[in-house]
């Protein structure tokens, strides 16, 4: 069979190639200036942490990019507005002292439930920004933002930035206004030049810089990390809690939440953990995959600094860790979609007694990382441009 008619003639290849390139270089889509080399920034994997990192090839980590990203992360003018009532940045909700989550004690967002600049409630609960550079399985509760997403606008942390700008329940802005405002602020264009090789401010570059900063937010020095490294011992109660955490006949948290062997304290996979019996299927993993076994399945959030990131579960139904442990002990609900790892469903839960619950919580609190919560490099810059 002759396929010649289907083959583009060789002489047309340069034209096709040029067209493809033209498609990639629209005005708001600049790559860093060719040949420009900002200072590379290397993330060293802490002890026991993965070597593989989710860093896009077209957005390598650089000192200048991270510095710019940190400023933008904390700059309320990311909303595209300048009136004091209309300022909003990533850090408006993502507080360092609450593990870059809202937390239940946020001064504005009551009980940890956020809303946008115009008062529209955010339909999902926040997730903390911890060790996101090692998430290979998709961001958000159902993993929508993933390298596997056929839509290239929903693939990585970079994309979460523009999404936050335009979402009605977040900044309720538009990207043109944001980039125009940032470009008009003396100091920023120079920083864009240092980071990307030219002063041009685009939403893509804003997203790239913020994503670089977010990828530096690494928690690896909690008490449990020091225990893993042999630097510190756990108390008797914490050790008992650790045993419960990592045994099937105990609380069996580790299959979904990690432990020694998976120090991220999440698999970043998706599970129906027995919270409900009826599932709308609109914001869960099923909403993406259409697989009935994904009904009611959400990501298990990392347990690092978990005591600061209430309320809990994808909808914030539990205000305290104690309520969460009670649920797993006695409150599991059966459905055909419950994940098979929830083998305690036969008894309605793990049936922990009060002393065991206390031990388990004592262990979970060893995942609090004070260094992460107060590290100056992660905090607000002394001065914005």
């Amino acid at each position, binding site marked *: 069979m002759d396929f010649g008619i289907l083959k583009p003639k060789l002489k047309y290849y340069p034209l096709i190639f040029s067209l493809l390139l033209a498609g990639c270089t629209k005005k708001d889509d600049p790559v860093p200036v060719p040949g420009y080399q900002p200072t590379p920034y290397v993330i060293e994997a802490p002890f026991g942490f993965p070597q*593989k990192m989710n860093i896009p090839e077209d957005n390598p980590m650089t000192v200048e990019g991270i510095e710019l990203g940190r400023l933008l992360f904390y700059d309320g003018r990311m909303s595209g507005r300048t009136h004091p009532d209309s300022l909003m940045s990533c850090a408006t909700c993502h507080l360092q002292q609450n593990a870059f989550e809202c937390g239940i004690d946020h001064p504005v967002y009551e009980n940890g439930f956020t809303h946008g600049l115009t008062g529209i409630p955010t339909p999902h609960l926040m997730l903390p920004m911890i060790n996101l550079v090692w998430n290979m399985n998709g961001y958000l509760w159902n993993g929508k933002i993933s390298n596997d997403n056929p839509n290239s606008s929903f693939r990585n942390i970079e994309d979460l930035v523009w999404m936050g700008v335009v979402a009605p329940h977040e900044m309720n802005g538009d990207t043109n206004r944001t980039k125009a405002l940032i470009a008009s602020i003396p100091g920023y264009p120079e920083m864009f030049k240092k980071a990307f090789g030219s002063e041009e401010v685009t939403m893509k570059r804003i997203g790239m810089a913020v994503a670089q900063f977010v990828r530096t937010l690494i928690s690896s020095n909690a008490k449990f990390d020091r225990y893993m490294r042999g630097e510190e011992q756990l108390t008797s109660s914490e050790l008992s809690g650790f045993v419960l955490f990592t045994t099937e006949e105990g609380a069996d948290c580790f299959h979904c939440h990690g432990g*020694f062997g998976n120090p991220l304290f999440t698999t970043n996979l998706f599970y129906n953990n027995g919270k409900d019996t009826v599932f709308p299927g609109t914001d869960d993993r099923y909403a993406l995959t259409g697989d009935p076994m994904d009904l009611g399945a959400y990501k298990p959030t990392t347990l690092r600094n978990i005591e600061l990131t209430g309320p809990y579960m994808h909808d914030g139904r539990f205000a305290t860790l104690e309520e969460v442990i009670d649920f797993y002990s006695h409150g599991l609900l059966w459905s055909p979609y419950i*994940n*098979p790892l929830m083998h305690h469903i*036969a008894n309605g839960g793990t049936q922990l007694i009060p002393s065991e619950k206390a031990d388990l919580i004592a262990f979970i609190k060893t995942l609090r990382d004070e260094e992460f919560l107060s590290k100056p490099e992660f905090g607000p810059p002394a001065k914005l441009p």
Partner: protein
Amino acid sequence: MKLIKTLAYLLIILFIMPLAGCNKSEDPVPEPDTGKITFKFYHYCDGAPLDFDIRKYVNEAGNQYMVNEIQYFISDVTLHRPDASSYMIMAWKDIHYVDTDIPSTHEWKVLDEIGTGDFERITFTFGISEEKNQSLMFVDHPESLMFWPQYLGGGYHYMKLNGKWLDTNQFERPYDFHLGIGQIYDSQSGEITGFIQNYFEIEVPASGFTINKDQETVINLVMKVEKWFNNPHTYDHNDWGGDIMQKQEAMKLACENGHDVFGVLSVPPSLRYGGRSEF
């Protein structure tokens, strides 16, 4: 003049010596003929490709069950020749992870150059040997998610086979058929006093093959899931419940059943017309 002659002789000797060296009888041995081997992994139940997430199977104990996912390691894959010599695959890696949810793990293109000729059988370790099964040797996903808690012996799960079965109360219960290092518990205190290595060797039946020069030989390995639950032991989920990581007796039965779990598919599913396979 004498000096010139001497220098000329020296130059001739220096020129000839290297040439003589090239002609000595120790010529480099020609590289042996080699080929490549690739393993593909399939998962069957009752003679047909496994249907996940559907409670359609009945094991020898009479349990109606389904399988949701299977994740496992095989290691120390060894290719045996008729003359009793063997070759263990390990040039690039000696442990392979298979995850039914991750298609890329269903094919292992071995990088080793295998000497040509006939091989009569394949053996491998199901799981990871005691010597190699060290905590934190896998730090990246998905292998790292297989870690086996240190308190229970450390290292990694040999296998997670997760599913659900209909128990005696007609309640659909999850089972986590997880294999790894077993524990010995003190009958009085309940404390762990020792560990038991449960990894075991599998000899794949009818697994002879030939490696041809510069060619890739594909071996289609198939896990027959129902075999985990019979021969020699009838494994009843009602007896062991949903979790067995801390039940050495259950893991022992499972591992003893594991001897005939693997086979070779002569014709992989995509090439068949459908219907039942040879099992």
